[in-house]
Each structure stands twice: as C-alpha cells, then as structure tokens.
C-alpha cells in the first residue's frame, strides 16, 4: 500500500505543470478536423487516424485481459457454489444469489464489515490529524531540523510493508520485545511478558499503529509540499492582521489546501480499507479470526474454509463499498482537473 501511495503521491504534483502545459497546447479536440488544426503533423507516415489507437492498444488489451476479465470472473464466481467438492471436481454449480443472501444474513460478515469500517475511520482520522500536524511543523522548522525530520519520515515511508510487519512483530514480541520494555520503563506493571496479540482487538491496535506509522509520512510530506505553494505573503498578511496560529490555519491554510485534504482523505480511506498485507501478515487474521478485515475475511473464507464462491461474493461486496468511496474521489480529481 505504501508504495501505491508513493506512486500516486508523486503523480499528482509532478503531473500538474505538465498537465497544464499539455492542455494549453491542445485546445479541445473537435473530432473530425485534425488535419486542418495541425498542419505540422502532416508528415506522419501511417494513416493519421489509426496510429494513436495502435499505440494505445497494447495497454488497453493487457488491462482488459488481466484486470477487467478477473473482475468479471469475480462477479461470475460469486454466483457459484464452489466448495471443496466443486473445487476438486471442477464442476460449475450455479446458485444465484445464495452466496449473497447467506452472507447478508451472517452475523460474522456484519461484524467484520463494521470492524473494517470503524478500523478504517479511526486509522484515517489519526493519519490525517497527525500527518497535518507534522506537515505544519515541518513548515515552521529550521533547515537542519526539517531535513532530520523529513529524512526520518522518508525511512518510515519507504519501508516495504512485509518488512515493517516483521519488525513490528519483533517490537511487540512477548518475551524480548521493546514495547514491553518501554511499558515497564514508563512504570506500568504487568508488562513482563505481555502478549500484545492476545485478542483480535489488541492485534488490530498494533496493525493500526503500523498503518498510521507507515501512512503519516505520505500525508505530512505532501502537506508540507502543499504548504510551500501557499506563498509566504498570505502568512505575512495574516500575521499583520494579528491572526493567531489557529486562525491562520483555518482562514489561510485550510481553504488553500482543501482539495488536497479531501483527495488525501479519500485516498487513505481506499488504501486502508483494502489493506491486506499488513492485516494478514501481522497475525493471519487471528487469533480466532478476531482481527479479520474484509479483504482478509475474503481470503480466509476462500483458502482457509474452502468456500470460494462465498469468498468471491465477499470481495464483490468489498469492491462495491470501495467503488462508493472511489466515486467521491474521482469526482474530486475530475473537478481539480477542470480547474487546471
């Protein structure tokens, strides 16, 4: 997930000047009259209409085969009964909406759904809050301290997910973990051999700490990058008018970075909600399936319980929820694109 985030993170700001430039060079294309509008393109050796399609075709084709088709297959699978027997004999047994009705009537499904939503909400709230605060702090630091802090954030950001999960298991180890030592040093009792992964809830708390630790750098560093674009004049003006720090934030910083806040919040919701590696690798959804979120629930229902049809239905329901969030996100992005 972190990496995804790096990707999109840089894509946004990086892209902006280029996007603007590209737009100014290419006024809205009326469909038929390319040749007239672009005399300089006359030298093209291929028939002018076909070349762009040929260039785009490999990309579209590979996405169709390895992205669209699996999605469609997922929908189809969710209408099939695919338990151990059907899995081995490779028969296709259609069950209509059975998987869905079974799921929607299952209290376990609902508790996992609610858990996932609450978990995501808490995570995103913490990430945005802490990330914004650190971003603001970065903006007010001196050069050296800023470098130290951003370097440290960069390390947390760059850590591969699986490596960081392993490290967190070590930090919260029952016998020799640093977390127990910290608690003892702070004077808490009962942390001699405290098992941090004793319940589903406590496991989720550790995963939450891991996700917040891994996601805050993205928000903080981008927040800082956004703040540098706000322009010092605005701050100066606010300061001259005698605005307090709090007031400056709400009156000057926030309106300027509103779309950044919204986009980042939605991105984080999407990433956290579908986070799989962090949740699964931490404790395989355990103990006693107590730390399962929806993506992990789908995986375990399929691979662990041999209910592939039900698992497909869970993933479809998860995707539907994700699409609901994404539609807001895309609306924001498109709006921003229009403004540019």
């Amino acid at each position: 997930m972190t990496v995804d985030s790096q990707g999109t993170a840089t894509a946004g700001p990086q892209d902006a000047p280029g996007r603007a430039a590209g737009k100014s060079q290419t006024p809205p294309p009326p469909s038929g009259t390319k040749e007239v509008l672009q005399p300089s393109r006359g030298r093209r050796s291929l028939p002018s209409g076909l070349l762009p399609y040929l260039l785009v075709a490999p990309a579209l084709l590979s996405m169709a085969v390895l992205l669209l088709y699996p999605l469609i297959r997922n929908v189809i699978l969710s209408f099939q009964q695919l338990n151990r027997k059907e899995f081995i004999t490779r028969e296709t047994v259609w069950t209509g909406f059975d998987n869905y009705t079974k799921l929607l009537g299952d209290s376990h499904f609902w508790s996992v759904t609610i858990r996932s939503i609450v978990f995501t909400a808490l995570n995103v709230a913490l990430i945005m809050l802490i990330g914004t605060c650190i971003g603001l702090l970065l903006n007010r630091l001196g050069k050296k301290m800023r470098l130290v802090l951003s370097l440290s954030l960069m390390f947390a950001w760059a850590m591969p997910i699986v490596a960081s999960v392993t490290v967190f298991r070590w930090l919260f180890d029952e016998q020799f973990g640093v977390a127990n030592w910290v608690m003892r040093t702070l004077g808490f009792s009962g942390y001699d051999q405290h098992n941090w992964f004793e319940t589903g809830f406590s496991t989720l708390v550790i995963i939450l700490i891991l996700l917040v630790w891994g996601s805050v750098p993205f928000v903080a560093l981008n927040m800082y990058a956004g703040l540098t674009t706000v322009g010092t004049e605005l701050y100066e003006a606010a300061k001259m008018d005698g605005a307090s720090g709090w007031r400056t934030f709400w009156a000057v910083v926030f309106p300027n970075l509103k779309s950044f806040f919204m986009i980042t919040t939605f991105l984080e919701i999407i990433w956290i909600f579908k986070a799989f590696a962090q949740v699964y690798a931490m404790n395989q959804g355990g103990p006693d399936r107590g730390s399962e979120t929806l993506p992990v629930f789908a995986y375990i229902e399929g691979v662990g319980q041999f209910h592939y049809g039900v698992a497909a239905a869970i993933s479809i329901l998860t995707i539907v929820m994700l699409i609901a969030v994404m539609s807001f996100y895309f609306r924001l992005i498109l709006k921003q694109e229009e403004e540019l």
Partner: protein
Amino acid sequence: MSTTTRTPQKLRTRKPITVGAVAKNLSALVIAVVFVFPVYWMFSSSLKPQHEIMTKDPIFVFTPTLDNYTTATGVDLFWTYVQNSLTVTIGAVLLALLVALAASFAIARMKFKGRKGIVLIVMMAQMAPWEVMVIAMYMISRENDMLNSIPMLTLIYFVMVLPFTIWTLRGFIAAVPVELEEAAQIDGCTRGQAFRKVIFPLLAPGLMSTSLFGFITAWNEFAMILMLNKDKESQTLTLWLTQFQTAFGSDWGATMAASTLFALPVLIVFLFLQRKAVGGMTAGAVKG
C-alpha cells in the same frame, strides 16, 4: 523578487531563541526518533549477536556481527527467491515501460476520439483493488495451468504498475515542448526519429523515477504471490520473509537480517529517487 524573499529569512535568523522554538525543535526531534525507530531497530537487531538480542532490557551498545546475515542467506533456496523476485519485478517494470511509453505518447501528444475515455480508464485502473481480486485470479490461473508460474506473476505485476506508469509518463511527455519535436521534424526527422532522438533523451529522468516506483510496487506485492505461488521453488522474497518468521521461530536476529536484506534495495532506491524525481520534475517544469 529575490530581495523580497530574502528579507524575512534574514529576520528569522536573527531571532533570539524562544521557548516556542525550543518546543518546536524538541517535538520535531521526538517525532523523528519515533518514526525512524522501527527501521533503526531492524538494522541494529540484525547486527547483534544472539545473546544480546534475547534480553529483557534492550542493549543499545554492542559489537556488530554478520552472523545473522549468514543464517538468513543460508536458508534453502534463498538465491532462488532473490532470482524470482528480481525476474518478476524487473520484467514487470520493463514491460510496463515499453507499453506505457507508446500509450502515454498517444495520450499526451495526439488527438483522437476516445482519448478522454482512455485517460479515465487509466485513472480508474490505477485504483484497482488487486488485494480483493485474488480469488478470481487464482481460479483463472488454475484453469490455465499458471499457478506457481513466474511468467504469470510477472504479467500480473506488469498490469499492476502499468496504469501508474502511463499516468506519470504522460505528464513527463506533455512537459517536453512540442516545438522541439516540430523543429526536429522540420529538420527532416520522421515522427519516429523525432521521438527517439529528441523526446526520449529528455524523458530519461522521468523514465528512471517511474520505473523505480514501479519496482517498489512490485517488490512490495504480497496478496497475489501468497495466493498464486504456493510452491517453494516459485516464491519470492516477500513470501520468504513472512515465512521466515514461522520457520525460525524466535531467532529474531536472523529474521531482522532477512528483513534488512529485503528492505535495503527499496530504502536505497527510495532515497535516491527522492532527489531524482524532484530533479526530473523541476527540469521538466523549467523547460516547459
């Protein structure tokens, strides 16, 4: 312009040390320590001798040893995992670059019906919930005898990084002025030559950072490999690392050495990239 920006800075440096400044720097220091600690702890644990890891109170000063690394790399099939990881990630990134270069050139430079739709498709594909598609992908691979297959995994990772690669390259290509390309064409280049000789060299930093981000994505991927490649021979370092823990139980020194080996390429790439990406970005912006 330069004088107006310089004056406030001068004033700032002359400021006396205040309580606020101390609090600011102190909290920054604490935050920095908190965020870097897990990474530091991974490194330091990986260098500790066994008896200094298994202690109730952590030891901060120790004589470093590479024993843990010997244990970690001595695991059966370690070099197979390294090879698989490299094959899958590099293969996926190169394939994505090739395909994305063509597509993004068309999107950034040409006008055709459906261009907007394609941009939208790329945008949506970038958000594809791969983690929740593992079941379908497993069934498809099983039907086509592609389980435990390195080529299949490479293809999946290729499509995973493709939308992002198109999206970013599109920005980089758009940042190269059309005039340059046109000048080359006036000088007698064909369109293909103009692309090869003028645009492509200017794209180098963009290609570099884009491919490195793709590399990180593929290196990090976990759900697909967990689902598809159950065979020992066809696993990658990602899966190896999660199983290392179970296999070695409480040998945390070796586990941390394994984590370090896994994280190191990404950490290096990332630190290097930070400068490269910014360099490519500003260069593009100035020239455009």
